[in-house]
C-alpha cells in the first residue's frame, strides 16, 4: 500500500556525512515544538497573572490562629449541667460521646466506607479534661450524662469505660463539689445567668450556652459577678472560631468592600426540629423529672412576670400555669416565653455575635421588630417569623435580621459595601458593585465583572490573591473543600471549648467573654421587647439601659 518510502533506505545514498545530518534532523525534528510550548506557557502565565491578580491587598495572614496549648497544662475537672440536645453536642465536642451514638457511627462506617465520622471523632484532640460531675433534672439524661462522661476511650456500648462521675440531683450540689474546677452549662435559657452567677461565686470557671440571659435585670448582675470573681467565662457562640469570619474581618478592615451601610442576616428553617418541636423522650414522667427545679429560679421568674405584667403583656405568659407538669413544655421549652428567649435569643444572637465579632458594633442604638406565630400554631407564644431592624447610627449602618421557621430558602449573611458585597457563610464570596470606585479600573479593563464573584475564600486554601476560577467557585459553593482540605477539620464547638480551657490554664480572656456576652444579651432583649411591646427600643449608652421609644 505504501508507495513512497520516507525512511532512509539504501537508495538514499548520499554519503555518511549527509546521512548523519539527516539522521540528526529527523531525530530532533519535533524538539522546536518544546520551545513553542515553553513560550506559550510563559505568555499564558503572564497573561493570567495580569488578568487575575487582585494585588497585595488580597494577601492575608495565615489560617485560624488557635491559642497554642500549654505543654504540661494541668488537667481541668469539669462539671456538666444539662444533658439535653445541646449538652450532648457539647460533651462530644469536648471528647465524650454517648456509647449509643458511637454505635451508630461504627455501624455507619461498616456500611459505607466513605462514612468517616467515627474516624474523625477518634482523631479529635484530647483536651486534657476529666468530667467529674454531671447534673440533669431528668433521670434518663442524668444517667446518660454519667455514662457518657465515663466513656473516656470513645468506644461503643461494648467498650471499656472509665471512672463514673458523681451524678448530682441539683446544680447547687454540683457547684458545691470540691473536685470540679469548671462547669459547662447547657440548660434552658431561664437558668443560664442564675447558674453562671452561682458557679462563679463558687469559684468555678463557666462555659454557658447562649443567650447569656433570660431577663434584663439578671444581665447586669451576671456581668458584675463574673467580673468580680474573675473567673474565666465563655459564652457558647462557637461562630467565634469560624475561619471565614476571621478572614471577613480582615477583608472589611482593609476596606476591600468599601463603606458598609446595610447588613442582612437571616434564619431559615423548615422542619419541626428546627422549629423547636423536639421529640418527647421515652421514660419522661413526673417521677423521672424534677419539675420543681425546671420551673426556674424564683427571683428570675419574678423579674419576668414583673416585666410582662407592667407592660400589659400577660397574654404572653403561660398559657399553662408554671407548676403544671407538661412533657411538651419540658422538652419543647423554647416555644414559650416562660423559659425561652425565642428567635432573638436562640438564633438572632448567633448572627449578631458574628457581626459583632467582625465589626465590633456593640449594642445597637435602636431595635424595631415585627412578626408573629404564622405557621406553627401549636400553642407556642414565641413567634416563628421575626424581623428585627437594628440601627447603628454611629457606624452609619443598619443590620436587618429576618427569620422564618417555615421556609428553607437559603439566605446567607450579606454585607453590603459601597464597592462590593460580601456573602458570608463558612466561605466568603465577594462580588464587585457596578458603581464601585476602588474596583473601577479593574471593571473597566474587564478583569472584574460586576455582580459576579471575583474573590472566594475557602478555609484551608490560603493566599488566594487572584480572581476566583470557575472550578474554585463550584467547589466553594458546595463546601467540599472546606470539609477536607487542610487534612484535619475542626468542629467549631470543639475549638470554642478548647479556647476556654486554654484560657483557664493560661489566665487569658476567651473570645466570647462577659463583655461580648453582655452586648449579645442586651441586643437580643431589645429585639424581643420591641416585638412584645410593638415599639422601637433604644439603648441609652450612658446609663446602659433599654429605653422605650
Amino acid at each position, binding site marked *: *500500500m*505504501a*508507495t*513512497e*518510502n*520516507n*525512511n532512509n533506505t539504501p537508495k538514499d545514498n548520499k554519503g555518511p556525512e549527509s546521512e548523519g545530518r539527516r*539522521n540528526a534532523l*529527523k*531525530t*530532533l*525534528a*519535533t*524538539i522546536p*515544538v*518544546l520551545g513553542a*510550548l515553553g513560550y*506559550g*506557557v510563559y505568555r499564558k*502565565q503572564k497573561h493570567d497573572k495580569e488578568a487575575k491578580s487582585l494585588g497585595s491587598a488580597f494577601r492575608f495572614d495565615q489560617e485560624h490562629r488557635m491559642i497554642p496549648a500549654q505543654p504540661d497544662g494541668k488537667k481541668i475537672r469539669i462539671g456538666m449541667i444539662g444533658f439535653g440536645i445541646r449538652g450532648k453536642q457539647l460533651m462530644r465536642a469536648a471528647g465524650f460521646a454517648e456509647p449509643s451514638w458511637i454505635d451508630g457511627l461504627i455501624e455507619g462506617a461498616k456500611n459505607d*466506607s*466513605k462514612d*468517616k465520622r467515627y474516624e474523625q471523632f477518634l482523631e479529635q484532640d484530647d483536651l486534657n479534661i476529666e468530667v467529674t460531675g454531671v447534673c440533669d433534672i431528668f433521670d434518663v439524661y442524668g444517667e446518660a450524662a454519667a455514662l457518657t462522661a465515663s466513656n473516656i476511650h470513645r468506644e461503643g456500648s461494648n467498650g471499656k469505660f472509665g471512672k463514673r462521675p458523681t451524678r448530682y440531683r441539683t446544680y447547687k450540689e454540683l457547684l458545691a463539689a470540691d473536685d470540679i474546677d469548671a462547669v459547662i452549662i447547657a440548660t434552658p435559657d431561664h437558668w443560664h445567668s442564675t447558674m453562671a452567677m452561682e458557679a462563679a461565686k463558687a469559684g468555678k470557671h463557666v462555659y454557658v450556652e447562649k443567650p447569656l440571659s433570660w431577663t434584663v435585670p439578671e444581665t447586669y448582675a451576671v456581668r458584675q459577678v463574673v467580673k468580680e470573681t474573675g473567673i474565666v467565662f465563655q459564652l457558647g457562640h462557637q461562630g467565634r472560631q469560624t475561619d471565614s469570619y476571621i478572614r471577613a474581618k480582615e477583608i472589611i478592615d482593609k476596606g476591600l468592600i468599601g463603606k458598609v451601610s446595610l447588613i442582612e442576616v437571616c434564619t431559615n428553617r423548615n422542619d419541626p426540629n428546627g422549629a423547636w418541636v423536639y421529640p418527647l423522650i421515652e421514660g419522661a414522667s413526673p417521677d423521672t423529672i424534677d419539675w420543681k427545679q425546671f420551673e426556674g429560679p424564683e427571683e428570675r421568674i419574678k423579674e419576668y412576670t414583673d416585666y410582662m405584667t407592667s407592660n400589659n403583656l400577660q397574654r404572653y405568659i403561660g398559657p399553662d400555669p408554671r407548676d403544671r407538669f407538661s412533657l411538651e413544655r419540658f422538652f419543647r421549652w423554647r416555644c414559650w416565653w416562660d423559659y425561652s428567649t425565642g428567635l432573638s435569643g436562640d438564633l438572632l444572637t448567633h448572627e449578631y455575635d458574628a457581626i459583632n465579632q467582625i465589626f465590633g458594633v456593640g449594642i445597637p442604638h435602636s431595635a424595631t421588630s415585627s412578626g408573629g406565630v404564622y405557621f406553627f400554631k401549636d400553642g407556642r407564644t414565641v413567634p416563628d417569623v421575626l424581623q428585627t431592624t437594628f440601627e447603628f447610627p454611629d457606624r452609619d449602618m443598619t443590620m436587618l435580621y429576618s427569620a422564618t421557621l417555615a421556609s428553607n430558602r437559603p439566605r446567607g449573611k450579606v454585607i453590603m459595601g459601597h464597592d462590593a458585597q460580601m456573602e458570608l457563610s463558612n466561605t466568603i464570596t465577594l462580588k464587585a458593585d457596578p458603581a464601585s470606585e476602588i474596583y473601577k479600573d479593574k471593571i473597566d479593563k474587564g478583569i472584574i465583572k460586576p455582580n459576579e464573584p471575583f474573590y472566594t475564600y475557602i478555609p484551608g*486554601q490560603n493566599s*488566594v490573591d487572584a480572581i476566583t476560577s470557575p*472550578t474554585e467557585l*463550584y*467547589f466553594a459553593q*458546595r463546601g*467540599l*473543600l472546606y470539609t*477536607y*482540605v487542610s*487534612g484535619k477539620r475542626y468542629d467549631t464547638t470543639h475549638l470554642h471549648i478548647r479556647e476556654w480551657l486554654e484560657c483557664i490554664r493560661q489566665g487569658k480572656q476567651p473570645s466570647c467573654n462577659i463583655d461580648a456576652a453582655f452586648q449579645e444579651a442586651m441586643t437580643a432583649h431589645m429585639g424581643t421587647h420591641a416585638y412584645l411591646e410593638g415599639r422601637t427600643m433604644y439603648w441609652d449608652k450612658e446609663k446602659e439601659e433599654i429605653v422605650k421609644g
Partner: protein
Amino acid sequence: MIQKDSYTSAQLTAMVVLRLFIGWHFAYEGLVKILNPKWTSLPYLLDSKGFMSDFFAGLASDPAMMNMVNALNEWALLLIGLGLITGAFSKLSSIGAMILLAFYYLSHPSFIGAQYMMPFEGSYLWIDKNLVEMAALAVLLAFPTSHIIGLDRYLKKAIPLLSKLKLM
C-alpha cells in the same frame, strides 16, 4: 498490514501531528498543575461517580496518599507529554497516557444519570473525550513514528536494551 517503516509522507505527517497534539495536551495539563501550587485532584476524586467511586474517594481520604496521587499525576502528565512530543520512549509514553486516561474515565464515567459538580463542556453518552484520546493513543501505538521522527531514532541505537524491553 502497513510496513511500519514505509509510511507515505501524508501518513507519516498525520501520525506525527497526532502524536505532537496529544503530547502537547498532556504536557500542558501537567505544567498547569505543577505551576499552580494550590492545585489538587482532591475535589475531582471526591466527586467521582460510578462503580469505582469508592476507590477514588478512598485515595482522597488520606492526606499522604493524596500528595502522592497529586505528584504522580502532575509529573506523569508532563513526562508523557514530553515523551510524545520529542518521540522518546513513545511506547511507554503512549501506554502511560492510556492508563491515566482510563483512570480519568473510570472516575467520571459518562453513564446515564451520572451528575458531576463540574459540568463537562459538550454532551457525552458513554464515550467521552478521554475515551476518544485513548483510542487515538492506541492508533499511535499501532502506528509508531518515533523511530523515524523522534529521539527514539537515536535511543534505539544508543541503548538497544530499551528496544528489547519494548519501551519504544
